[in-house]
């Protein structure tokens, strides 16, 4: 009688791996690989999902105080209608929050109080100032400025704030200070752009000490009479109305007076398109488009762009001895 004793390596056919699984093992490997690669993406998708707040003026925290009354300064007439409030606070550039114009939904998550700004470098009296203390100490005025973006669109908005020169009077620049460097706050918990570690964060902008002292250089803390929302650079920013908008640093945490010309964020990224001076000039096109006219946000009307954005009478003298500089990019 034949007795079959199975050897150790022999297994019944019923335990064999089905053929279709063996022949598709490459597909299984691919699926496993894709799963590993996409898992972090899926996890982050939930974390970074943009939930749209209903109110672009929402304050974070909700206790951010109203601004004290501000006198309207009529020395700088805009000469055109104000932009709509809603457009001004929902059509924004703020690279730390993204490249699209709808960054307000994300930016609103950035707390704007408490907020301090350090003023240091070549000054007699450096200090760290609470924004609300500065508002009380210096006082506020309202100015309506034209805004000209390098992307060939424009707005007209009423800023509430104070002249930068009044802050400089407090810290007293030394004679050796030639430039002013503006540093945007870094809030990685809300600024998704900071994850791009290869960029030269923090965002830096700068100007000469003469430009900083010009009467037009303004430090807004408000817009349309309300506290400046983060998507517009709140709670504290700088505005140079005669330059392309990217020069006007947002959400400023540090101001440094220095004898070295600051290299700005955009100058580091694309110096051929975004230089240090960036004064508005319709005759000098951007490398990729004309600057001869601008589209007004809201009406979509296209209007001619003016040299120095129409503020030449106040600032042209700043550049009379700088004709060898690249003043228009």
């Amino acid at each position: 009688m034949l007795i079959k004793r199975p050897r150790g390596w022999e297994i019944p056919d019923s335990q064999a791996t089905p053929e279709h699984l063996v022949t598709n093992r490459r597909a299984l490997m691919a699926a496993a690989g894709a799963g590993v690669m996409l898992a972090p993406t899926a996890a982050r998708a939930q974390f970074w999902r943009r939930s749209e707040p209903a109110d672009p003026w929402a304050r974070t925290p909700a206790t951010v105080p109203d601004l004290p009354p501000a006198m309207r300064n009529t020395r700088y007439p805009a000469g055109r209608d104000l932009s709509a409030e809603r457009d001004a606070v929902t059509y924004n550039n703020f690279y730390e929050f993204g490249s699209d114009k709808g960054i307000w939904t994300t930016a609103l998550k950035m707390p704007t109080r408490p907020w301090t700004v350090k003023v240091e470098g070549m000054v007699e009296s450096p200090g760290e100032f609470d924004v609300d203390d500065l508002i009380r100490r210096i006082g506020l005025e309202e100015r309506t400025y034209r805004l000209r973006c390098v992307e060939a669109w424009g707005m007209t908005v009423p800023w509430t704030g104070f002249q930068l020169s009044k802050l400089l009077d407090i810290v007293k620049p030394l004679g050796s200070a030639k430039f002013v460097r503006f540093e945007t706050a870094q809030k990685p918990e809300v600024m998704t752009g900071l994850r791009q570690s290869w960029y030269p964060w923090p965002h830096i902008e700068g100007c000469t000490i003469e430009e900083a002292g010009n009467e037009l250089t303004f430090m807004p803390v408000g817009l349309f009479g309300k506290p400046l929302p983060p998507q517009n650079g709140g709670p504290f920013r700088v505005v140079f109305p005669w330059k392309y908008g990217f020069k006007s640093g947002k959400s400023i945490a540090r101001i440094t007076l220095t004898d070295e010309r600051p290299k700005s964020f955009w100058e580091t990224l694309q110096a051929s398109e975004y230089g240090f001076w960036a004064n508005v000039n319709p005759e000098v096109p951007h490398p990729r488009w004309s600057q001869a006219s601008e589209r007004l946000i809201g009406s979509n009307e296209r209007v001619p762009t003016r040299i120095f954005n129409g503020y030449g009478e106040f600032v042209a003298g700043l550049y009379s001895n700088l004709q060898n500089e690249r003043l228009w990019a």
Partner: protein
Amino acid sequence: MTPLGAAIFATWPEFLNTLQAGVQRRIAPELWDWVFLPLLEWPVWVVPGALGLLLLILAPGRRR
């Protein structure tokens, strides 16, 4: 480890900014945050690694 994005930026500084603007303004803002950015944060060796894996998957099976 050098992220893929850093290697691209070092080679071609304008490229990622232009790509991001195109993706976020013309397709969907979230696409950048959810898909492109996580990929750019991967170590740079992922590129040859992924190519190798792809070749492995596409290669004809060995004869038995």
